[in-house]
């Protein structure tokens, strides 16, 4: 599965319970649109750590890395180098 689809699938299943409607595009902010709350961030980080096998540093917990599908894809891609 493509990385983008994997991340998109997690967001849709875990935060939207299968509802595709709120997710307009890959650029939209997950926070500003209420798709993810502060617990959601924790869940997202757990997904990145457990399902993607990454280790995430505190300094990387910034919206530029996590706050949209596109940012997440870029972040994971960079991490995997």
């Amino acid at each position: 599965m493509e990385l983008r689809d994997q991340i998109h699938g997690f967001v849709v299943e875990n935060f939207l319970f299968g509802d595709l409607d709120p997710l307009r595009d890959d650029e939209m902010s997950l926070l500003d649109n209420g798709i993810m709350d502060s617990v959601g961030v924790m869940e997202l980080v757990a997904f990145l750590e457990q399902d993607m096998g990454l280790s995430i540093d505190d300094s990387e917990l910034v919206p530029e890395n996590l706050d949209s599908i596109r940012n997440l894809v870029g972040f994971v891609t960079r991490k995997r180098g």
Partner: protein
Amino acid sequence: MCGICGAVSLAGGLELPDGAAERMIGVMSHRGPDEYGAWRDVSVFLGHARLSIIDLSTGQQPLGTADGTVWVTFNGEIFNYIELREELRGLGHVFRTQSDTEVLVASYSEWGEHCVDRFNGQFAFALYDRGRRRLLLARDRFGIRPLFWARHGDVLLFASEVKSLAGWPGFRPELDPAALGEIFGTWVNVPPATPFGNVLQLPAGHTATLDLGRDGERAAGPVFRRYWHPDFLPAAEDHRYVGRDERARLAGDVREALADASVIRLRADVPVGAYLSGGLDSSATAALIQHTTDRRMKTFSVGFKDAAFDETRWQQTMSAHLGTDHEMIRVGDAEIGGAFADVVWHAETPILRTAPAPLYALSGLVRAQGYKVVLTGEGADEVFCGYNILREAKVRAFWAREPESRRRPLLLTRLYPYLEQSPAGFLTRFYGAGLDGVASDPFFSHRPRWNNTGRITAFLHSEVAVAAAARDPESRLRASLPAAFADWGPVARAQYLEMSLFMAGYLLSSQGDRMLMGHTVEGRFPFLDHNVAELAGRIPASAKLAGLQEKALLKAAVADLLPAEIVTRPKQPYRAPDSASFIVGQGAELAEAMLGEDVLREVGIFDPQRIAALIRKWRAGRLTGARDNMAFIGVLSAQVQAHQFGRELEHRVADSALEPAEIAWRGVEPKP
């Protein structure tokens, strides 16, 4: 406490169907199993289930004046009935009983519908004035006691509980799935709405008068009048600096008002106990009572098997400090899951938390110990500013003055320490919601909370979601705001909203009256004495909430009565394990039976695919967030309620019907 019910014909005579009285009174007999009474004339029927607390021998109801012109069925207490009786005697009234009910009818005879202004109490009553052919329905200032009503053809029905209305043959309370949208946004239905499309509630602090026509005219009304609302200082006075001397004086005033409110709530002809939660509020209440008596007080508390929720240690500290005779019950997942269906049956509304369940277990303990009355600390957080949402409103208003500031929002981590773990920028996005509405948006204080809870509406079936969106509870709420609201500051506004929505619609009902009355126990709340609330409303918010110190003034008022650790410990919000209570045992069976795809389709409120995804997450043990847990409990309770008020309702009502001989018909009118 008690339960009341009745019916009024809006045109012509009242046909009382066979079994109506037996069913309406019987299905809420938990509210008053001591005696059942009824009265009727050609247009009106009044019913009553009594829990005898004052004037055990002659306080039967419904009760009429000596000349039989005014009759009342009354649920609750008028604590200042002794003082009122003296005043009324002075005005020439003669009393035949020792009851507060008789004081109520005399007060009406003397002061008309404005009698409610003089009552210090918690009440819901229906009074029929035969001379004027006028029905008066009234509810106490805060909504401590419930009162529902419905139109059924040419009959107006009313009762303490919705299930009692269902006792009227041919009337069926219809659950309105769209009403769930409100609960999934603001936690409650905005009064007068209820979860039922054809049932309304009389809002707190309101009376309703209905004038029955003469000679075949139709009835006019009901006419609603709001006789009281929480009031606060205008913004400029509310944040005025209060110096040390004035603070000390105000603390003394608060102490005196609270002591009076506690003592007057001991009036009963049965023993009165108290709850100890381990927090400041119930500790203060218990201490004020123990202060006035040599008798060893009986106290009750609930503990949790899960240490994260448990406050036993503090409860024991307080009990030891006061030397009370303390009883406790410890609950865990099994008790919460096992009691949940009963909890929903009593709450009569979908709920977003399991927190009512332990309180239901606790009232069971009180009942088993032979107690009928308990005092609790309910209302202190609203009246004296203990809630985070009030502190949050203060911080967000401060931040709104400099929206670009990076430092100001950081104050929120003082309220919610876990935010410090959040990624940079998250806090400002979540709590920055609606920041520019600090002046223009009356619901500024509640935006972040409502936005967050509102996400749960995504689980509604698409058609239900459309209907829910069209209800627009905010407009209804905006229209109900008192004129003074516009002049209040952010903290006062938030207090008002908390009192009229969350406190009245959830804390006093789902967590209060309904869980207490489910086991036939009456709760009394000194902090909700209107003299205390009015005094607090006249005190600047800057004293009640000094900086961000919650309940600063209240603490100063009661500190000398309590161990220091009780005063200084941080507030622990009362919570119970939520979705975790349904993983094994009875709770699991209930969830299994109610959340399957077929059942979801049959009920038709929720989108089965979304719920399936929610359940997958729950089964995987990943349902950790508050929002997900609220969704789970909200969906489960709505499904349970749909069953109870759907196919089960008829036999639930029939099974609890009284025998005709169990009801004492009062008054001069023979039963037709």
